[in-house]
């Protein structure tokens, strides 16, 4: 009895292995091209961010915090970044930020158009939904394996595994936002002679913006959490320290690096969240 249940009656794992190997053997050129492009982009982002002196970077964050959320948050930003700098994690934090932003850019570039497509085409929406469920619930570590096989170790597989994990909220919330646009507002667009594109860019997307911004926020948060895990394939940044602390059972190092992640997360979360609540979009939420 017990033997039967452990036997590979349905060898899905083997099939997946075969598919991955087939893809590796036959599409190496394509993977190289994708890998090189993403590597170039991520390197650029990191180079730019690391090029900014800590004080200037802190000032930029504090200013954005003050603009979006007021002086109390600006003060928090200063304290948080000061703490990160003082514990000696500045470089890693910026590397993590660069990874997160790169992965977020790629996720949005893919996710928003797919979300629009899902909202406009019922069939596409129906097909994409289970795929998104799969992507979100599959344990995140699992993506690291094929990513590393396709792209080797380093930043690129880390970013791509992160994109797989972070793209669903962008798709979902874009699609939701567009579908939630009031029926009469869409009719108004048509009634005044909008073409499909005009309807999308002048009616649907602007009205869906709060929802899309919530998607951006979620994507950033998912990306940040995944970027840490992606250190297992050598993505770098704060994840390296977290990983080292686990390997050495160093609670102190784990706490310090973990704290840097938390502080970065809070700053990114509050700032991006605030973009979903501009005075003009609040009206849409109230349904006027």
């Amino acid at each position: 009895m017990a033997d039967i249940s452990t036997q590979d009656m349905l060898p899905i794992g083997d099939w997946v292995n075969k598919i991955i190997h087939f893809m590796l053997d036959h599409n190496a050129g394509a993977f190289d091209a994708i890998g090189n492009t993403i590597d170039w982009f991520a390197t650029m982002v990191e180079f730019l961010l690391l090029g900014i002196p800590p004080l200037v970077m802190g000032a930029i964050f504090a200013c954005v915090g003050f603009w979006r959320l007021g002086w109390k948050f600006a003060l928090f930003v200063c304290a948080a970044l000061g703490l990160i700098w003082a514990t000696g994690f500045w470089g890693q934090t910026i590397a993590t930020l660069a990874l997160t932003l790169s992965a977020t850019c790629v996720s949005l570039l893919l996710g928003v158009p797919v979300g629009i497509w899902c909202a406009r085409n019922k069939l596409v929406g129906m097909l994409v939904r289970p795929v998104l469920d799969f992507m979100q619930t599959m344990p995140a570590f699992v993506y690291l394996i094929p990513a590393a096989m396709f792209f080797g170790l380093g930043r690129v597989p880390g970013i791509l595994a992160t994109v797989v994990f972070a793209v669903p909220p962008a798709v979902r919330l874009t699609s939701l936002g567009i579908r939630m646009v009031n029926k009469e507002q869409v009719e108004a667009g048509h009634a005044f002679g909008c073409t499909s594109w005009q309807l999308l860019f002048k009616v649907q997307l602007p009205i869906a913006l709060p929802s899309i911004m919530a998607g951006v926020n979620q994507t950033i948060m998912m990306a940040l959490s995944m970027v840490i895990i992606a250190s297992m394939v050598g993505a770098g940044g704060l994840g390296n320290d977290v990983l080292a602390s686990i390997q050495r059972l160093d609670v102190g190092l784990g706490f310090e690096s973990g704290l840097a992640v938390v502080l970065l997360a809070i700053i990114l979360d509050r700032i991006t969240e605030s973009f979903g609540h501009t005075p003009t979009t609040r009206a849409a939420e109230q349904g006027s």
Partner: protein
Amino acid sequence: MQSAKIVVKNLYKVFGGKSSDVMRMLKSGAHKDEIFKQTGSVVGVNDVSFSVQEGEIFVLMGLSGSGKSTLIRLINRLMDPTDGQIILDGQDITKFNYKQLVELRRRDMSMVFQSFALMPHRSVLDNAAFGLEIAGVDRKTREARGMEVLEQVGLAPFAHKYPHELSGGMQQRVGLVRALAVNPSLMLMDEAFSALDPLKRSEMQDILLKLQREQRRTIFFVSHDLEEALRIGTRIAIMEGGRLVQVGTPQEIIENPADDYVRNFFKSVDTSRYLQAKDLIEVNHAPHAGRPGLHVPPSCSLPDVLQQLLGQTEPLQVRDDQGQCLGLITPSSVLSKISQHRLQSTATH
């Protein structure tokens, strides 16, 4: 002789199912309930024909579910009719392709919505200029035009506010401005004032009537409020279960309601308020030609007739445009007509 702006011929709209089967059943005389039972298809508009004259306010009345919202959406083809013709300025727009349709909506027609349907991310001025922007008019021209129309409805000081900063009545004025800004020859208004409180509603009706006096357009107005229909309508069409039951001027419908459905609309309405001088003529008096004395036009309202009549011993003359005397109004003829209407409306309660 006025010319027809819209001529609708044998228009049908069927929702769901195979429309060719449903059309065959309808044309062989099947009832819509029967069709729903057999096929699951809903007949929204069922063999409707009418015409709207150039420059009139044509009010389409009916209870919810009667198909009036569907009918108005067929006219600018937000919905595609299943069968029949809609002839606008001599062209059958049911045959238009997508490109012609976009062009038509930009050039000839606009729409006002029950929920206002303003764009929350646009300022009042940008909302007002929305139609022109879609049509590709440059910023300077469209904003000037937007301001011009905002001024006509007294909203110019609010041009740079956002819709959520305005009251409901003001928001719908923006909706009206948006529709007027494109200078359409046909304006569709779907329950445009129904979401407003009674005071604001009559204020909006006044604005509409004032604008209509200054710049005659053809207006197709959907409403479920008879008082509104009687107040603004040049002609009224009454719809029930996807069919048109009656089309006529307010007076015609008050005087001769086609059936109980139409009569039911008047239950809570004091129809005597809508009587005009020509309805009050004493039937037993032959009109005397060329006699001097006080006279009123045939469309003179009841309050005005009463004012003229007060303190007079002589009967009041009703004269048409050519000065022809159509008949005489006496206190007793007015009283009998009013009491007749009052009794009618209390009898139906």
